[in-house]
């Protein structure tokens, strides 16, 4: 693809802290390279803001290679911008052309309160995982990798679910602010494996309980989550989660 440069108008959500009312601020950026990533474009703008003695735009980022799930921007009405199965750090400026206006907002959900500008507090996800998204093991020598046989199809499905990076794009896209795609990925990848078996029932019950406590909504299968998920987690996992929940809820002794 031909390299080109462009001038853009950015409308970015600015908010000092979780208490302050935020507002949109308009910025003109020029000579942006089509080879830059979206975050690099914001870096360029931030360097200028710092030189001008202004507060740079706060945004989350870590790996900048699409695997950590930290970057989180709702760009022109879609989490992570226009590309399919993509994170904001992997969105490149060739998605835009000279003269475009880009509106950048933080994830919006009561359970993801804004900390500053485009940074939201996603510790609700951590607490959901803490409620059961793990397996309890005795420490000691590592077990031989091939000691436990796992059917290939199951291993593949578990692996696909485990690809979830906990970014929260699913919540950001959902009209119900539901965290079910995230939760279903976390429950599925353990429910499909023998290692997950001992805590299978308490896991799903505790994790759903925590999700509700955090104030996420109910899934109504609009599938907007799957459409924006950078890791292409399938809504099929949500049906599996519901099945796990039903069986556990009906048969758990407690």
């Amino acid at each position, binding site marked *: 693809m031909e390299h080109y440069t462009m001038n853009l108008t950015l*409308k970015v*959500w600015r908010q000092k802290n979780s208490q302050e009312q935020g507002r*949109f601020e308009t910025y003109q950026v020029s000579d942006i390279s089509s080879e830059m990533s979206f975050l690099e474009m914001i870096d360029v703008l931030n360097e200028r803001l710092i030189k001008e003695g202004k507060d740079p735009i706060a945004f989350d980022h870590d790996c900048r290679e699409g695997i950590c799930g930290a970057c989180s921007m*709702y760009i*022109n*009405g*879609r989490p992570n911008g226009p590309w399919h199965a993509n994170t904001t750090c992997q969105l490149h400026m060739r998605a835009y052309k000279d003269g475009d206006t880009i*509106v950048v*907002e933080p994830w*919006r*959900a*009561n*359970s993801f309160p804004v900390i500053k500008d485009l940074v939201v507090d996603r510790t609700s996800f951590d607490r959901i995982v803490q409620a059961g998204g793990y397996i309890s093991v005795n420490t000691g020598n590592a077990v031989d990798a091939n000691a436990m046989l796992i059917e290939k199809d199951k291993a593949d499905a578990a692996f696909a679910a485990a690809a979830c990076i906990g970014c929260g794009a699913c919540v950001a*896209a959902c*009209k*119900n*602010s*539901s965290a*079910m795609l995230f939760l279903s990925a976390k429950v599925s990848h353990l429910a499909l494996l023998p290692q997950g078996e001992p805590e299978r029932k308490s896991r799903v*019950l505790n994790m*759903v*309980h925590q*999700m*509700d406590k955090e*104030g*996420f*909504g*109910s*899934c*109504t*299968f*609009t*599938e*907007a*989550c*799957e*459409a*924006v998920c950078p890791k292409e987690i399938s*809504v*099929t*996992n*949500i*049906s*599996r*989660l*519901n*099945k*796990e*929940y*039903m069986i*556990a*809820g*009906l048969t*758990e002794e*407690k």
Partner: protein
Amino acid sequence: MKWSEFFTSSVGKKFVMAFTGLFLISFLIVHVGINACIWADLVDDSDNGEMFNKAAHFMGASYVIRIMEIGLFLGFFLHIIQGYMLEFQNRARRKKGYQVAMGSKGSAWYRKSMGLLGTLILLFLIIHIQDFWIPSRITYATTLGEVTYNNGAPIHDVYTKMLLVFSQAWVVVVYVLGCFSLAWHLLHGFQSSFRTVGVHNKKYVAMAKGAGIAFSIIVPLLFALMPISIYFGWVNNN
């Protein structure tokens, strides 16, 4: 786990929606079957609603059916109350919304409009109950005539009432619009209810989707054709 928690968690609320939704779907099958009896008049012009009136009589006369009818009202009640609660609770999960809405990126309009479509069905339902259920169950003495078939006991003539109601063009339009709302509601709801209760096997999801599309087109279409065939006189009393 306590039942109260099982049915009130975010997943449990969806179980209530799905089970009541599936129950209402089973009701639609019975309802469309009974009403289709009016078309006996197309095959035999001297039927004049005999088959339909007898079927409607059966649905009203037996206590078993009347008790099932209470179950039906309960099903509707639960579905509607839980539906509105879900709709409002879910909306309240995002107090501050987006400047640029997602629109239909990722999800078709009707899949996100179950509350609106349900409300349209509810409005239709109120009109429909006034048109037929109240006359045939409560005010029949003054609102319905009676007919006698083969020297049997006289039964309510709901058929003639239908001919009367559907002789008004605006009523026919309202009913057809009601059927449209139902079709869109079911287009999402049918498959969603199966997936909500845990169907995740690819083979069965494909079946639920296929059957859902067929059901959502065929059943509302049959319902819509009833007032239409009466309005245009294809089905009549002579």
